[in-house]
């Protein structure tokens, strides 16, 4: 357990406190426009991606739905959904959250916020061009890299600005330790361009021979989740949980082990998607071993988050940020352990090519990454705008449909996927009969997706209301329930 350093026992003077407050306000005000644009625009992509997802999901059990319009056929809306949420929602929001946390922890305001705001616009143009290209039929047909080639320059130039800003923040940071969130976020800002533009070069710009493409494809797709969304999500959780409850993380030693083992082992994970494929056994075995080694960082993070929260679980009744982030942190443990187990050949033989994999991907991208990002948005936006969220009712309308939706989604698709895999392996049931038996699970998937979309609409409505209603400037945060500080009694209806 972390022990208080001796010098922290001395109480800061009033002038220290005032200077610290002034500095913090300066940092938040400098981040207002660029981070605000990144986060605000990501919500538009979230809602758009969710609506497209519902269309794609309904088509799986009702193929005639919207089938007459070529732009809305399954082969286009499915990759449009994936890219809208991966690059439009998660990446855009992740950049905003990452830069804000870096700025806070480095104690340095973002200097060139106009250029960064321009980068946010460019990033969104890249996404708009990419989604438009996919829907008009220009997809590259390479999973996770479906954006047509003409979208990449926007993303490249924009990310160069982002990386430059991040490096500047780190370079000018206040002296002392680099906190674990800074390590995670800075590493993510280096890893993402290395992954994206390597894969883009080898698969889209100058494609290698066809049999060699899947290993590169899965190296990229798996690492996009594990070395891009995951470190930003973990970096945010390691910052937000201790800040909200006012308690340092349980063990800084464990957080160091968790980060460096992720950094050393994760890049080798993606090949487990090719188990059973015509690829060198050593390539896949190395990936299976690296996947199982992920138990180390996952368990360190799980122990740290759980023991940091000990004594503060009641705060989950009140703080929207804490509830979303802790939900996401718990999902991280589940999805990571599940991923390591799924990489084992005997399990993979059943689950591969089934809906189980889709459930697993959503547990990572939504239950973990998106939920942590939602929590971060609830924490960051009031500090950027110096105004509070306008309605706790809308926050509840965001949380519950999202949480119930992803839980339902995960359970029905995992269960349906396992049954599907067992029947496919048995080989006695006609393929189309197996497909027909998955339909009830796919219908529940549409219900779950609709629930999550309701939550996203509530968040977007809340965000717009917050932007336009300048009267919302109260000092008290919008919590799920009021707490009476003097007695500890609470009025809870969360």
């Amino acid at each position, binding site marked *: 357990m972390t022990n208080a350093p001796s010098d922290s026992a001395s109480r800061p003077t009033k002038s220290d406190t005032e200077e*610290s407050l002034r500095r913090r306000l300066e940092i938040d005000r400098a981040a207002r426009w660029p981070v605000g644009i990144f986060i605000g625009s990501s919500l538009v992509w979230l809602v758009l991606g969710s609506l497209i997802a519902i269309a794609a999901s309904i088509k799986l059990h009702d193929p005639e739905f919207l089938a007459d319009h070529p732009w809305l056929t399954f082969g286009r809306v499915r990759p449009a959904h994936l890219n809208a949420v991966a690059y439009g929602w998660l990446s855009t929001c992740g950049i905003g959250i990452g830069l804000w946390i870096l700025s806070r922890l480095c104690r340095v305001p973002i200097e060139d916020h106009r250029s960064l705001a321009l980068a946010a616009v460019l990033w969104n143009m890249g996404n708009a061009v990419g989604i438009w290209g996919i829907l008009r039929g220009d997809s590259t047909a390479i999973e996770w890299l479906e954006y047509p080639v003409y979208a990449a320059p926007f993303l490249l130039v924009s990310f160069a600005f982002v990386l430059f800003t991040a490096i500047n923040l780190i370079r000018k940071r206040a002296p*002392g330790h680099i906190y674990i969130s800074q390590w995670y976020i800075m590493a993510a800002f280096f890893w993402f361009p*290395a992954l994206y533009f390597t894969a883009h070069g080898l698969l889209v710009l100058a494609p290698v021979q066809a049999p060699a493409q899947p290993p*590169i494809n899965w190296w990229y797709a798996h690492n996009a989740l594990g070395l891009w969304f995951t470190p930003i999500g973990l970096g945010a959780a390691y910052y937000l949980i*201790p800040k909200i409850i006012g308690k340092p993380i349980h063990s800084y030693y464990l957080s160091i082990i968790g980060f460096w083992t992720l950094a050393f082992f994760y890049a080798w994970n993606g090949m487990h998607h090719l188990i059973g494929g015509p690829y060198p056994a050593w390539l896949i075995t190395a990936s299976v071993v690296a996947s199982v080694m992920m138990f180390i960082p996952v368990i360190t993070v799980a122990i740290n988050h759980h023991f940091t929260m000990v004594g503060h679980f009641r705060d989950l009744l009140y703080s929207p940020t804490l509830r979303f982030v802790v939900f996401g942190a718990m999902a991280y443990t589940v999805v990571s352990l599940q991923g390591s187990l799924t990489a084992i050949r005997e399990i993979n033989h059943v689950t591969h090519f089934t809906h189980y994999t889709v459930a697993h991907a959503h547990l990572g991208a939504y239950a973990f990454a998106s939920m942590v990002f939602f929590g971060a948005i609830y924490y960051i936006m009031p500090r950027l705008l110096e105004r509070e969220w306008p309605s706790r009712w809308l926050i509840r309308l965001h949380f519950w449909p999202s949480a119930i939706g992803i839980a339902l989604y995960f359970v029905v698709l995992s269960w349906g996927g396992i049954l599907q895999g067992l029947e496919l392996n048995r080989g006695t049931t006609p393929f189309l009969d197996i497909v027909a038996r998955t339909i009830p699970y796919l219908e529940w998937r549409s219900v779950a997706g609709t629930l999550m979309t309701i939550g996203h609409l509530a968040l977007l409505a809340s965000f717009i209301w917050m932007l336009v209603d300048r009267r919302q400037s109260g000092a008290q945060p919008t*919590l799920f329930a009021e707490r009476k500080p003097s007695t500890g009694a609470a009025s809870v209806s969360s």
Partner: protein
Amino acid sequence: MLTASIVLLLIMLCLSVGTLIAFAWAASEGQFRNPDEAAYSIFDPDEPVGIPTDPNLRSGDDERSI
């Protein structure tokens, strides 16, 4: 296939070597010494340890506002 495997292997090795360099730099800079101090580095005089940053989660004796 062999070429692509070698390219991928080289990229993964580059990432690993980059990580090793960062690890060596962190060790030489003393980032792994006194980790308890690092755990407290997220707190400031205006947001000190022991004080939740959402005011309504506080015990009631602190009146700072964001």
